[in-house]
């Protein structure tokens, strides 16, 4: 656990000696005096600086294919005209007060931020902040005017306020540093290459890689309410990925990720080799398995599949999102907004869902969704979202919605695009079953439905839901490959690892070639049973989060066989399969 120094802002704020904080604070004073024509000065300004120091390496088939390192510092200036009641944010035109000035130069990382010097140079930082604030203020005045002009004369329902005030927090935590010696890194990169050479020994493999990324991310936040924050994390992620092809030349890809706070915590080379061999073997078994034309009946989601199911159905929707004035609520993949279900049943009795960003680890594994402060300067709290199956509340940023107001410390996504986002989502059932009992429950449910077997799904291919947090380039390719074959991309990825579990003796046989019919959040009400051993699904890219859930047995789902036409063309054996 990191030591957290929390100082509620006293009358005289401690004079911070951090040049970044000092430059932001000093320029903020000036920004609050900005005036354009007849418009008022901003009522609120917040600066977020995201400082990232990263290294990355990737190996494939025994060779290192990419090594990158870099450092970047990006500023987002949220300058708001108007008042907490009605301000320039979230305007229908999309023009808001965010972003940076042209003179400051755009960040190469996109996202509308302004690049800042990576050196702690007070003058150069202030200069960039000056121009970014100027541009943001001008846009906010324009956005507010447009918002007022588009406002309906009389509104059917009272409009929620634009923004909620928050208690300012001052806390300068020690800077997070990558602190990886080159020699240690190189040794690990050698491991990557060695582990990846396992791919060469498997004739079914068509693609694969072993990658390692390490990032020290320090976040600074200064607001006109008096917040002064600096906090950082170091996260290291190792990823094993492999793809095989089915006889119809459909690519099946799967990956395994390890999250750690230091290189030492990562699995050893030998452990990685064992895991990778197992991953490849499982994929090869799946690719060789018989196709199933369709299925209607009970489905057991275990392993990562249960978390992927919740990710697709709940991850976006459980976070309260404001409605754009004059526009419809944006519909995100996997993002059916659940506000209409508030106070109603979401899952069967006995289920509890809690989001707790303050949890740093679970069963010794670091959780990606842990953070000290959100991007609006609010320290997060654990939120009991679902109690006994009833949706009690939702995760909130500082932007209120019709039903929910008051931040829960979940406003995240970088300074320029803050939205309520889950942190660590814990799903539990008070009467969770052991593995054997759950297996039996699947067989019973299948027997009950008059079936010979039930299905157990242990992993899904990445679906649209994963895009919210940024999937890897390889996963993206697979997704687009899926679409290029004329299929819709759904929030829920295709089942990847599927086995028939026979009613009579419980034996299992792998099958493949299935896709889900549309699955909506109401399917969760038909959960028949849950396990008691939770699995962790860490998403470390984009805005990191974690889903911790036991296995889930759904009473009935429809799955269809994917139609496939084998492509024409060559069949050149892979180099490692030529038998040289």
């Amino acid at each position, binding site marked *: 656990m990191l030591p957290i120094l929390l100082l509620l802002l006293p009358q005289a704020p401690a004079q911070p000696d951090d040049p970044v904080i000092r430059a932001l604070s000093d320029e903020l004073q000036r920004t609050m005096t900005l005036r354009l024509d007849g418009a008022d000065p901003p009522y609120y300004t917040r600066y977020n600086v995201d400082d990232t120091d990263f290294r990355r390496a990737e190996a494939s*088939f025994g060779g290192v*294919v990419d090594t990158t390192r870099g450092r970047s510092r990006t500023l987002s200036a949220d300058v708001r005209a108007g008042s907490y009641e009605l301000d320039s944010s979230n305007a229908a035109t999309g023009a808001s007060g965010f972003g940076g000035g042209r003179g400051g130069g755009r960040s190469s990382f996109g996202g509308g931020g302004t690049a800042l010097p990576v050196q702690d140079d007070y003058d150069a930082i202030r200069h960039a902040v000056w121009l970014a604030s100027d541009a943001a203020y001008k846009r906010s005045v324009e956005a507010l005017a447009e918002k007022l002009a588009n406002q309906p004369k009389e509104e059917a329902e009272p409009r929620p306020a634009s923004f909620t005030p928050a208690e300012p927090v001052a806390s300068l935590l020690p800077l997070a540093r990558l602190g990886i010696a080159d020699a240690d890194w190189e040794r690990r990169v050698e491991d990557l290459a060695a582990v990846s050479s396992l791919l060469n020994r498997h004739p079914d493999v068509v693609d694969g890689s072993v990658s390692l990324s390490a990032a020290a991310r320090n976040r600074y936040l200064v607001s006109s309410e008096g917040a002064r924050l600096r906090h950082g994390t170091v996260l290291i992620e190792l990823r094993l990925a492999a793809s095989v092809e089915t006889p119809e030349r459909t690519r099946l890809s799967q990956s395994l990720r390890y999250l750690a706070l230091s290189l030492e915590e990562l699995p050893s080379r030998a452990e990685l080799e064992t895991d990778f061999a197992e991953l490849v073997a499982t994929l090869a078994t799946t690719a060789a398995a018989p196709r199933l034309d369709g299925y209607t009946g009970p489905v057991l989601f275990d392993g990562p599949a249960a978390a992927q199911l919740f990710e697709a159905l709940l991850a976006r929707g459980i976070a309260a999102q404001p409605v754009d004035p004059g526009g419809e609520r944006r519909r995100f993949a996997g993002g059916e907004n659940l506000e209409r279900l508030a106070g109603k049943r979401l899952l069967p009795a006995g289920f509890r869902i809690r989001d707790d960003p303050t949890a740093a680890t679970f069963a010794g594994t670091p959780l990606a969704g842990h953070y000290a402060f959100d991007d609006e300067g609010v320290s997060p709290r654990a939120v009991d979202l679902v109690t006994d199956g009833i949706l009690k509340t939702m995760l909130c940023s500082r932007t209120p919605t019709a039903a929910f107001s008051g931040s829960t410390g979940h406003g995240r996504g970088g300074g320029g695009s803050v939205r309520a986002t889950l942190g660590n989502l814990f799903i539990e059932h008070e009467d969770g079953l052991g593995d054997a009992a759950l297996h039996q429950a699947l067989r019973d449910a299948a027997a009950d439905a008059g079936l010979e077997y039930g299905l157990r799904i242990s992993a899904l291919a990445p679906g649209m839901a994963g895009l919210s947090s940024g999937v890897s380039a390889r996963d993206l390719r697979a997704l687009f490959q899926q679409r290029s074959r004329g299929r819709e991309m759904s929030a829920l990825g295709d089942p990847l690892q599927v086995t028939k579990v026979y009613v009579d003796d419980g034996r299992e046989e792998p099958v493949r070639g299935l896709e889900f019919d549309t699955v909506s959040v109401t399917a969760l009400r038909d959960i028949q049973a849950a396990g008691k051993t939770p699995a962790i699904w860490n998403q470390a890219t984009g805005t990191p989060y974690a889903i911790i859930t036991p296995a889930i047995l759904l009473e009935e789902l429809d799955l269809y066989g994917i139609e496939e036409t084998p*492509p024409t063309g*060559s069949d050149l054996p892979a180099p490692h399969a030529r038998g040289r």
Partner: protein
Amino acid sequence: MSTLLLLSLTPLLAGFPQAPEASAEPPLVTLLAEEIEYSMQELAAEDGTKPYYLSYSVTDTVSATIQARLGALYADSERRERLLDLDLRVGDYQLDSTHPIRGGGGFGGGFPAGGGAAIALDDDPDAIRFALWQATGAAFDAAYERFRQVEANQKTMVEEEHQAADFSREHPVSFFEDEIALQIDAGVWSERVRRVSALAKKYPLIYGSSVSVAGTAENRLLASSEGSRLRTGRKLLRVVLSASTRGEDGMELEQSYIFNAASEDRLPTEQEMAAAFQGVIDQVLALRQAPVVEPYTGPAILLNRASGVFFHEIFGHRIEGHRQKDVSEGQTFTNMVGQAVLPAFLSVVDDPTLASFRGEDLRGFYRFDDEGIPARRVELIRDGILQTFLMSRSPLPGFDRSNGHGRREPGRPAVSRQGNLMVESTRAVPFEELRRMLIEECRKQQKPYGFLFEDISGGFTSTSRGGPQAFKVLPIVVRRIWADGRPDELVRGVDIVGTPLSCFSKILCTGDDPAVFNGTCGAESGWVPVTATSPSILVEEIEIERRERSQERLPILPSPIAPEQA
């Protein structure tokens, strides 16, 4: 073969620090060649279709950038990547899988797959073989499928306007240069760009500024089923100094100065950088005070470097061979070979084999193009008469061989592009004389003034048949030259517009002052480094229009950096 190579290399030996030496064949080239042999033998569709041509090229690029603004370091990045490009063709030289599909709109069935795959950075044979296999299989499937579409398309459409083959037959080449490496001392350069960039702190009206050094070292390896085997290296380095501000009317004003070099020791000194940066700042601040001029038609001089950009945009892009073949192109010059397209005192060549000109390194220099064809000096215009086009391996009727201008950015298919475009004149006078002629021309046309275009930031030109055959050039330093002898006056906010054929016919005379413009040119096949060299030109009539203006206002508050601090 060796004779030809020696010929094209001779001019370099003097000006180039490390004369290229033939090394032994690099192991990676051998591996590429082995895999080509294997694939050409084994690759076949169920109906027996095989590729007739396969080439692999691997571009290994190390790039580094160090940038500073106002005395502080921004990004400091270094990156290495190796990209594989392959050209796999099904069919034969006459008609193959790359043939345009008519009636399909645009690229028809799309380009064959296989461009720009990342491959192992070390020469690990297994990892590289694997990447080659993967890309080759996908490219073959795509080429096979596309060739079937091409054949079907041939049957259903009327006979084509041009009957040129799809791919030229060329002699294989074998040549290996030593591997090159980037050697920018990050410690030294970080301090240098930081110090120079701090100069801008004294100027509260300079809103944006940047000083950077950037370099790429590219080692390119190529092997083809025709037997070519190559390794070539290219190093491109730049120091870029830029500054921007806004006029009181909100007009964005930007200036930059670029030092180009082909080796680290030819980069500028800190003093030279500081002087150039000061010049850029002074110029952009002067532009702030300059009046905005009204639309105008009349005589003008394009100063040498500006004229180079002008010729690159207006002329160069229109003599790229593939545009003569594409029915969607305007084809300004397609049927004009043997006819006058420029005044008789002008000749134009494109000579990529030239590494430097009057002491300046040329970015458009290369020994072999991206299809592995030796670069050649091509005489495009002799005494005003169009001779030929810039050719890649995509032949035209009457031009069935490449002249070494098939170029691309890694990851894209090559098309014909410019290298070192050079405008030569037999009616050349000293600049002062040219200026006197401009004033005389003003009087003759009863115009109170003419223009001198000193610097051009770039331009664009539409060569497509659907659009007008027009161009726009974006000057950044423009002076008004008064006929009555008043001092020259800096102005701003004008663009040059026109149509190429009428514009060329109005060139009256040139200066005797050829100078080099080094740039990067973007087109279908991506960004490629190019050079345009030209003397100043006097044009009888040029049309300018007012530049579209930004509505943004000046910053509300003054700069937070107090001038006395700096």
